[in-house]
């Protein structure tokens, strides 16, 4: 009997142990010596402790990312952030965005625009070489633009599509002719389109699977192990000078918590992952760490299906917006590290924003609007009825994003107060995409009521891109995932896309802002601050690009002044 009890007790103890193991699944790497399971088999050169390296020693930096980006070339990289930013280490564009997001000449030395705004004459920098030693010429630029035109499914195909012609009068000059003046040409094309080498790509017919990483950029991709790491080596012959970091090792660590604990212990020295708000105080108080933060342009919004009743009614959408306290969302979910949404889409820090447009929180008014529409709770179940049907809906949220799930819960609770029954459904990102934005093509329709959504910072950096959010024609409104339609908006947007004069641009943008704030095809909830932590002892000369963060090539070129 004694023996049996022992065994039973043993099993009980085992149960306790296992419960604790579950609870403690996250590796708590408190000692610097503790191994990080996800750490790739780092090459020997990078193992030497970088923290003690004097300045003459090569600087080796470990900067963790969350997911693999597959082949790091313009057709195959995966994420808009940080994949696109990593691409910028290897490839260059003709212009580059500086800390204030102003396009500055980079591979080019200048862009002369003709009086009618149709012809851009671009001169190229001397002495630029591809990473394999071949010279970089205007033929490469022409080739790259035409390659993106011909081979679809790159991010750059739509913007280069309507270029009329590209001429190369000599090795150092490119002349681009447009069908109409394009005010965002430098920002959207020249500062964005990565130039690929003609001698490497000329016979490539399957760009999505082509394995090559030769660019002109400050870093060469030296090694990539799928799901383990990327290793970049500085390009010593870079035309803007040798980068200040000799080697960047980017281990792939899939769990943000592990990323932060590795940063705290020094196993990595930087990361592309924005710091979670709850860690800011702790990290700021740690003398080994430095935290850079500033306004972020990435958005979080409540997206309506603007085609489905009752959300197709602008007044219902207004009632929803009035019921949501965005300041409270920022305080609760982001712990204050963010800016409440501007209903007119633009970040309030944006130069084109009209400060008179503000979000209003007024649930009483929301109820009034719904009462006025005749949408009343006739059967006393706490939910209003619209045309005989209860005002209910499903709010989709990405299951890998706890902050969005929490926001969704708070929104559902707020809408319950005004008599709407919203059920929060958490799905994996792919499933949410499939319902809201099937095949990433808005012309394929949509099947949802409400969804938590967000766009990455570059959509905000170029204010002219706001037309893509609201224009009803799917080819122009390529990210109008709610299917919002308003002829007035379409006319204004058409005018805006060909307006070159900045004053007129601002005027048109503010008109659009006012309409968006009134019609609310989506409710802007907040813009989360960009918070980035790193260990300055290894490398600290990061450049915080407004709204976009520290992951950009200029961060590694402190002496280059574009």
């Amino acid at each position, binding site marked *: *009997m004694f*023996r*049996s*009890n022992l065994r*039973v*007790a043993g*099993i*009980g103890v*085992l*149960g*306790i*142990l*296992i*419960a*604790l*193991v*579950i*609870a*403690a*699944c*996250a590796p*708590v790497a408190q000692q610097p010596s503790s191994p990080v399971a996800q750490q790739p088999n780092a090459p020997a050169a990078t193992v030497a402790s970088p923290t003690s390296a004097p300045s003459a020693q090569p600087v080796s930096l470990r900067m963790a990312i969350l997911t693999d980006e597959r082949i790091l070339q313009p057709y195959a990289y995966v994420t808009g952030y940080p994949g696109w930013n990593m691409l910028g280490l290897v490839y260059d564009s003709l212009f580059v965005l500086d800390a204030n997001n102003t396009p500055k000449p980079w591979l080019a030395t200048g862009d002369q625009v003709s009086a009618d705004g149709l012809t851009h004459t671009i001169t190229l920098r001397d002495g630029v070489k591809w990473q394999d030693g071949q010279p970089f010429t205007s033929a490469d630029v022409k080739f790259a633009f035409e390659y993106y035109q011909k081979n679809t499914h790159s991010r750059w195909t739509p913007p280069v599509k309507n270029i009329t012609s590209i001429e190369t009068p000599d090795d150092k000059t490119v002349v681009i002719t447009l069908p109409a003046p394009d005010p965002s040409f430098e920002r959207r094309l020249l500062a964005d389109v990565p130039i690929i080498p003609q001698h490497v790509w000329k016979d490539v017919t399957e760009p999505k699977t082509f394995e090559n990483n030769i660019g002109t950029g400050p870093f060469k991709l030296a090694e990539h192990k799928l799901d383990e790491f990327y290793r970049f080596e500085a390009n010593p012959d870079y035309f803007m000078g040798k980068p200040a970091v000799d080697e960047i090792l980017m281990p792939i660590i899939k769990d943000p*918590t592990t990323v*932060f*604990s590795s940063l*705290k212990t020094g196993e990595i020295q930087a990361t592309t992952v924005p710091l*979670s708000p*709850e*860690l800011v105080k*702790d990290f700021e108080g740690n003398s080994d760490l430095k935290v850079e933060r500033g306004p972020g342009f990435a958005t979080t919004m409540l997206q309506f299906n603007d085609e489905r009743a009752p959300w197709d009614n602008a007044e219902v959408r207004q009632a929803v917006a009035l019921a949501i306290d965005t300041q409270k969302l920022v305080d*609760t*979910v982001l*712990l204050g590290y963010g800016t409440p949404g501007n209903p007119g889409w633009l970040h309030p820090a944006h130069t084109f924003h009209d400060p008179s447009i503000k979000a209003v929180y007024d649930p009483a008014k929301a109820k009034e609007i719904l009462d006025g529409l005749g949408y009343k709770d006739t059967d006393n179940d706490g939910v209003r009825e619209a045309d005989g049907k209860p005002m209910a809906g499903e709010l989709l949220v990405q*299951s*890998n994003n*706890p902050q969005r*799930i*929490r926001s*969704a*819960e*708070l929104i559902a*609770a707020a809408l319950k107060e005004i008599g709407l029954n919203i059920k*929060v*459904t*958490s*799905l*994996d990102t792919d*499933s949410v995409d499939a319902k809201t934005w099937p095949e990433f093509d808005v012309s394929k329709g949509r099947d949802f009521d409400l969804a938590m959504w967000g766009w990455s910072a570059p959509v905000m950096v170029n204010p002219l891109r706001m037309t893509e959010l609201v224009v009803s024609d799917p080819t122009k409104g390529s990210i109008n995932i709610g299917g919002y339609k308003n002829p007035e908006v379409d006319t204004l947007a058409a005018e805006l896309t060909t307006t070159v004069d900045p004053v007129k641009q601002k005027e048109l943008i503010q008109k659009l802002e006012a309409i968006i704030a009134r019609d609310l095809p989506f409710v802007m909830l907040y813009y989360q601050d960009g918070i980035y932590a790193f260990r300055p002892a290894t490398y600290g000369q990061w450049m915080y690009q407004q709204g976009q963060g520290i992951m950009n090539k200029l961060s590694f070129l402190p002496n280059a002044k574009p």
Partner: protein
Amino acid sequence: MIWHSLRRNRLGMLGLVLLGGIVLMAVFANWLAPYDPSKLTGQPFESPSAAHWLGTNDIGQDIFSELIYGARVSLLIGVLAAAIAIVIGTTVGLLAGYRQGPLGAGLMRLVDVVLVIPFLPLMVLLAAYLGQSIWNLVIVIGLLIWARPARVIRSQVLSLTERDYVLASRVVGAKDNRILVRAILPGVLSLALAQFVLAASGTILLEASLSFLGLGDPTQKSWGTILFYAQARNAFLTGAWLWWVLPTGLMITLTVVGFALIGFAMEEALNPRLKASRAIAVSSKPAPKKQSNPGRATDTAPSEPLTSTVRTTPSSGRVDKIGAE
């Protein structure tokens, strides 16, 4: 009969007290909890205080209240999933034990297959494929853990089939269905009940692990979801694990142990041979494959699905040895 044996088994009584306490807590959650756990009653990330005994979570909900209400969801999922497993397991066990032809053999091979399936990966896959809701969680867990109860029940059926009264009813020409339902089923019901209790202890742990991995329904307040948010919001880095993770882990452990202790005590009560033979069993070597004894399936211990090492205990050998006596 069960009750009397249970009362004599001190560990069984302990399990009963543990589980009883937790069930009471779940039932009377709305009286016991100081706050409504879905309401924001404090600032986010508060440390424990008089107002919030276990502090607040990432959006300012009271963790202590979450813990009390969490018992409801966790117990519900655990019990429902175990019920599914036992219904399937009993049916398969009855059929496989009674019909020893191709049907029985086929069912037993199916049981073998389900037993060797790598458990957690498959469950993660299924949960991701079916989507996140507590009903899917119940179904997934239920569908994956019926094999062990099926095996135990089959061995009981095998021995019952040879009993005189079953033979007698066959001789007088009773139909198979009637024999199964009227003669054999009552003989395995109490065993099924014990298996159910043991399965429930496993399912509660499974629910917690799946929810913790983010594969449950993050909008339901179960213990697993509390852990999910604690991990997602860096409780291990900020020190909040002390009041956010530890009490939750403790509740899960107490429930699991409570179920397990009751289950073991019930099995013991139902199977007197288990007591007598245990001493021999510990040192026994694995015997031939034949299983014909309603031996106690120690390998349904709650910990089994998470660590494959537990599965390799010599328990199966012991059970076989008893059978061969």
